[in-house]
């Protein structure tokens, strides 16, 4: 599988998790890892799985590194039909009312432009007892399997 692993972060947790996921998948798959701040909406590729790790900041907003991407996507408003993405959220249940709104909002934004979500959006809670990677690794394996069906094994 050809995977573009993207992260949106403010304090670096999502970046670390993305790097861990890359290390986990690299053996079997072609993975490129990038900050969302270095990714433009016209770089989406129908032949790839876009795997996104994104936190939440402020009051349920996107983290700093994801904001320029979201703004660019809204401005250009391209059709993302044929694009596949999976998304994993980082958040903190201390922020009850806006728990993981960042990843939720980003998923909605991509879907609104026609991209298709693969698998469930899973979330990590910084106030919980799970390690992010313990949730993310099985999620990543599962979404890759689903994407192989959707996009094709040799993509």
């Amino acid at each position: 599988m050809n995977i573009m692993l993207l992260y949106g972060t403010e304090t670096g947790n999502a970046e670390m998790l993305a790097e861990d996921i890359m290390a986990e998948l690299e053996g079997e798959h072609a993975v490129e890892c990038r900050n969302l701040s270095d990714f433009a909406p016209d770089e989406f590729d129908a032949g790839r799985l876009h795997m996104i790790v994104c936190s939440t900041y402020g009051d349920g907003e996107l983290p700093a590194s994801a904001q320029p991407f979201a703004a660019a996507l809204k401005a250009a408003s391209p059709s993302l039909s044929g694009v596949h993405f999976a998304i994993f959220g980082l958040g903190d249940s201390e922020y009850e009312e806006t728990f993981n709104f960042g990843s939720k909002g980003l998923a909605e934004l991509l879907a609104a432009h026609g991209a298709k979500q693969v698998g469930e959006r899973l979330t990590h809670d910084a106030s919980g007892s799970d390690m992010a990677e313990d949730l993310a690794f099985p999620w990543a394996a599962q979404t890759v399997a689903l994407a192989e069906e959707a996009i094709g094994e040799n993509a």
Partner: protein
Amino acid sequence: MSRAVAIVGSGPSGCYLAQALLKATPDLRLDLVDRLPVPYGLVRYGVAADHQGTKGVIRQFERLFERQGAGFVGNVAVGEDVSLDDLREAYDAVVLAAGLSADQALGIPGEELEGVYRAGRLTRALYEHPDAEPLPGLGRRVVIMGNGNVAIDLLRLLAKTPDELAGSDLGPGPSAWLAASGIEEIEIVGRSPAAAAKFDAVMIRELAKLAGVAIRVVDAGASDDPEGAKTIAALEAIDGHGSGSRRITFRFGLTPVELAGADGRVGEIRFVDGSGDVTSLPCSAFITAIGFDDEGVLPRDALLGSAADREAGVLAPGLYATGWFRRGPQGTIPDNRADAQLLAARILADLETGAAPAAKPGRDAFPEWAGAVGYQGWKRIDAAEIAAAPENRCRVKINSRDAMLALAFQEEECPR
């Protein structure tokens, strides 16, 4: 041989800098020197005990020592145990990331009265910093002066019921102190109007979760500015919250002019309001949360004053500054990360172009650091703190330097 870099201070700014440096140049010989036997600065001793999620960045910082080869040199104060000049002699680059730990003074008459306390003193005591002064009695009526997140942290902790501290790492001493505080009234006062308050709206919204309080907001005003309007909306939303026994009142636009009291103890604080009228609030304790300052161990003013490029964090050839030490006491953890990433690029470029004839010795110049606390020593402290956590707490901090050192060096005494 690779270059040697020393970072003075292992708070978020030092750790993020180390992270960025080692990511770009994994073979740097990099040491984080801290005056405390334990790392992570204000992540451990400033970020509130009931905001454990924010402390999650520690997992990133652990990688520095566990995978990226950084060294921790704990219990070594630069400017006291080792001079800055000696450090610069031994390392190709030295970065001051020592933060700002002294409390700013308000500068009004009566500040010396008993019952007047500064936020840093209280947070250090609450979070069991080894150099903290004991927790003082606050009495029944507390006034907090300041409108930043630190003021709200203090307000929230003082207002919480014991149950509401479940899951935190607040220690048994401070927990018992809070449970027995007898506080009936907390007034929080800002000099500016509510629209200009520095606290985050989300910190205000969090107060609506408190069970034991009754909140009132006096004169939040209005604002055309979107940020200000957001703050005001958050304040209006909590106005009238709860009918608990602890009364919380927000007041704005009051400039403190004088503290007064009897028998050397504060009893009243006088303010002038926007129209020049004097008002006063009775209080049994007055807490200022108005910012932090340099404590003078390192010659910060002189170094920043003569800096080659203060904005970029370049003080002199081979000497840099980042974090609160450079910027002043503003900015949250992510601001330090952004700052550190810029500075890392600058340092690496300087090391690249610098024509140092031979690589410097780094920590090998200091054989006495064999007696410093290394990362493994800290991990023994960390493990002991987590293992001893009582019910409803995620850790119990070891609060004395001696006890920390005893644990850190334990392995040598009783090998397994």
